[in-house]
């Protein structure tokens, strides 16, 4: 048990790649939390995919003992958060468990879109904010300009922002002192009934479900019978630990403390992030406000290339879902692709990460269908339906109107590229809401349809601005628009996995683009193949793939029949990467590539 006055809880927040995880490394290292020989860069990014891509996906907590200059030893609970917009939810719930934030700003880049988004969240959570200017070891660092920018753009006092290099360790002692002196100690009542916030939970193959909590009031001990207030489920605590970052057992956790427990819980789904945990007997009756669960916003179908792999795919998805409650799945049947799953994700990166893991960790070959958002169908009989999959679109005569999700997007971009960014947003049916300047950087706020952003907006934004723009968004509302379902017919047969929802005014250009793409993506066959885009029965674009003219091995290579057999095997293997639609074979990559917009 630690005195409240000697606890400091904080999250490290920043725009992607500004150095959060590296700063966490230095704090862990300088305080000797982890033995020197076990230290490695971005220690907390422990998933393979995090290490490979060099980004944080999951928030991570570490408890650090810090002997401060005032002679007292403080317990610091640090939460390193992801910077990518898809995982904003991890940031917001982490903030609910702590009292302050270290706001890291890359001194060579300045304030970026997620810097802003995170600050606003921190302010909402009543956090004390300590600004830190990172990467000052780099020649391009401009700490003074960035300080001014923080004050201008964000409007917080940056006069005492600490210049550091998370890489070299410069300024880290000052950061530790600032944590102790500038961030508030948590509050709480040891004698009150137990009230703890369920911050996170994950699946560990040895321990089962591990639950992370922040204790508000009361004390939790190993062996206690506890109750989850939302679900009413009761469990006995098997193991109580703190994360250093390895689990170290502890007898009890009191107010202000953060730790984890296991309690023979079977599935991550049995726990609700934001739930209040109390004792089964003499518990509190006042639950914490809780927070909204993460909502999947992007949906797509995942199908095995080889139909025989369906069971293997089901198995793999169920295992992954044990550990990631933020993605949803349900079985889907497609006329063209057979059995698969309709899955929901927090964003496109999240989708990629899950698909990557399924393919690599479970050795599956998958077809990913066009990503879609959730549309609200207002039926004539007053019913409102969610449409997750364009293939499920009911007959138009039953629909009164359709609503689509809109977002508020904040984009920060150097002046030079502003024109390109405005054009991109305009092309994607955006409505400009605000445009301000901070020095030579512009900040534009756009109201955009999520459907136009979900797929390749971020890639396009990066390419038109040579990587200099940053982007953040929040879902704002559902709004009515003239949306239609566009079907693609290959050789006169509709391929449901290629149908998309699109704005009426953009249907023709999208249709043309998709037909052109498919013309290049589908190899020539022995007959000519018409490709059409249609709305209802009306064809709005068409292309034709000419028949194969030549495919023969000219030379005979004497008696080397083995070579011929190998060639055939290779061609047959290539055929396996295709899916048969009527008489036509479509390569698995076509389903996503056909949607990419170049302009």
């Amino acid at each position, binding site marked *: 048990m630690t005195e409240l006055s000697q606890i400091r809880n904080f999250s490290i927040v920043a725009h992607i790649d500004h150095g959060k995880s590296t700063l966490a490394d230095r704090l862990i290292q300088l305080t000797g939390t982890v033995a020197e020989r076990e230290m490695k860069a971005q220690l907390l990014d422990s998933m393979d995919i995090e290490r490979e891509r060099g980004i944080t996906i999951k928030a991570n907590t570490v408890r650090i003992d810090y002997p401060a200059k005032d002679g007292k030893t403080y317990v610091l609970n640090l939460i390193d958060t992801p910077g990518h917009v898809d995982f904003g939810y991890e940031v917001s719930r982490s903030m609910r468990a702590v009292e302050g934030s270290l706001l890291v700003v890359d001194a060579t880049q300045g304030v970026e879109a997620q810097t802003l988004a995170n600050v606003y969240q921190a302010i909402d959570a009543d956090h004390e904010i300590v600004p830190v200017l990172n990467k000052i070891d780099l020649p391009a660092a401009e700490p003074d300009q960035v300080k001014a920018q923080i004050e201008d753009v964000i409007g917080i006092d940056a006069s005492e922002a600490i210049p550091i290099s998370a890489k070299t360790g410069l300024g880290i002692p000052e950061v530790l002192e600032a944590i102790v002196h500038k961030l508030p100690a948590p509050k709480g009542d040891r004698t009150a009934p137990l009230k703890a916030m369920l911050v996170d939970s994950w699946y560990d193959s040895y321990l089962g479900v591990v639950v992370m909590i922040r204790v508000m009031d009361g004390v939790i001990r190993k062996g206690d019978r506890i109750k989850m207030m939302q679900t009413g489920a009761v469990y006995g605590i098997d193991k109580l630990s703190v994360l250093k970052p390895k689990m170290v057992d502890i007898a009890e956790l009191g107010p202000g403390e953060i730790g984890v427990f296991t309690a023979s819980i079977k599935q991550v789904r049995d726990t609700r992030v934001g739930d209040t945990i109390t004792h089964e007997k003499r518990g509190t009756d006042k639950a914490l406000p809780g927070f909204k669960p993460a909502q999947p916003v992007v949906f797509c179908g995942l199908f095995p290339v080889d139909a025989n792999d369906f069971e293997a795919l089901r198995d793999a998805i169920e295992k992954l879902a044990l550990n990631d409650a933020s993605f949803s799945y349900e079985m889907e049947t497609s006329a063209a692709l057979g059995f698969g799953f309709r899955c929901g994700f927090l964003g496109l990166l999240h989708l990629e990460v899950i698909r990557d893991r399924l393919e690599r960790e479970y050795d599956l070959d998958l077809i990913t269908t066009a990503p879609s958002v959730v549309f609200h169908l207002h039926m004539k009989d007053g019913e409102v339906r969610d449409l997750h999959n364009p293939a499920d679109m009911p007959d138009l005569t039953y629909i009164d109107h359709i609503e689509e999700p809109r977002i508020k997007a904040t984009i920060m971009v150097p002046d030079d590229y502003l024109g390109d960014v405005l054009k991109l947003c305009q092309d994607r049916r955006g409505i400009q809401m605000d445009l301000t300047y901070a020095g030579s950087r512009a900040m534009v706020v756009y109201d955009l349809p999520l459907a136009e952003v979900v797929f390749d907006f971020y890639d396009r934004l990066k390419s038109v601005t040579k990587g200099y723009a940053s982007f953040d968004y929040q879902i704002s509302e559902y709004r009515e628009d003239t949306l239609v379902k566009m079907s693609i017919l290959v050789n006169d047969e509709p391929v449901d996995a290629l149908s998309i929802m699109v704005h009426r005014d953009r249907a023709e250009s999208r249709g043309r683009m998709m037909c052109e793409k498919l013309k290049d993506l589908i190899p020539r066959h022995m007959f000519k193949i018409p490709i059409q885009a249609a709305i209802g029965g009306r064809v709005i674009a068409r292309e034709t793939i000419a028949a194969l003219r030549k*495919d023969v*091995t*000219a030379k*005979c290579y*004497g008696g080397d*029949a083995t070579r*011929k057999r190998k060639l*055939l095997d290779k061609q047959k293997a290539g055929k396996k990467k295709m899916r048969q639609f009527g008489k036509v074979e479509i390569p698995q990559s076509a389903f996503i590539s056909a949607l990419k917009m170049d302009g």
Partner: protein
Amino acid sequence: MDDWQQGGFGLYLHWPFCASKCPYCDFNSHVVASVDQAAWRDAYLSELRRSAVETGGRVLSSVFFGGGTPSLMQPDLVAAILDEVRRLWPRANDLEVTLEANPNSVDSGRFRGYSAAGVNRISMGIQALNDEDLRRLGRLHSVAEARRAFDIARDCFGRVSFDLIYARQHQALDDWRRELAEAAAMAVDHLSLYQLTIEDGTAFGARHAAGGLKGLPEDDIAADMYELTQEVLDTAGMPAYEVSNHARDGAESRHNVIYWRYGDYIGIGPGAHGRLTLAGQRFATEAPRSPQMWLDSVQKRGNGELPRTALSGEDCATEYILMAMRLREGADLRRYEALAGKPLDMEAIRRLEDMGLLGRSRDRIAATASGRIVLNAILREIVA
């Protein structure tokens, strides 16, 4: 009756050396300063004797000296080999003995000697009938030199054929039309016309991968060229009896037909392949590609072969269909079924018939003229 007997029995000898390496060529050919022809003679003779132990008594209908450039062999080396062959195997009355020759003046000087040794057919690699293209193809001879060599060959041998490569860089359909007319006029009774294939591991392959080798005809033009070739040579009385081979009736290369009818053949020399049925089991034989390794292996172990691969019935069936479908006469469905233990995909065959790509009469299927040009696609469909 063993399956191979429906295809015949032949002997292939590989001579792996060339005067220079052509940039498009991925045959097993090597350029060396000098060759100890006596040592090579001994090795070939030793391999012939070893093979005869397994196959003695079978009637040989063809011997083929392939390369590389066999016209670099001394005539007495060729004579020694053919003498031994005659000693070891009974021969068909009309035994075909072919030698691949390059049309250089030095090589043609040896033609009389080859004829005396028993060679009765020459296949000459002329490749192009215009000097600029010969240069691009890295050939050492000119058109004039090739024509002289060809005339000598006609004087020395009863049967002569020559090879051309088309769909070359910067070649237009009309260029090929003119060249084809010349080729048809020049041809005796057999012609091989290959579309240029860019092979990995060759100089052309590397240039192509690096974005070089500009001006190659697009697939559609290449297809037009192929069709034009059929038209011109049909008119000239030398229709294609195989994808790239044309002959007057009865003048087909017996040797190549053994491959395509999936007979048995001995392969001797570096990188040579063979198919041998022994006690009802068919084997694929293969030799190391490196000339030195082959020679060492023959000298030290008395055997120039790599370990043999026993082919399953299904492998044989696949090889049979892949080879036979190259021929105008096509393949025998019952023979396939007997080898594979299952029929071909008859539904696919019907579909391809409807599209006019396959023709069928009772138990045979064959690619039509329009099918032969997309033969690989057809094979992918019908071979399960």
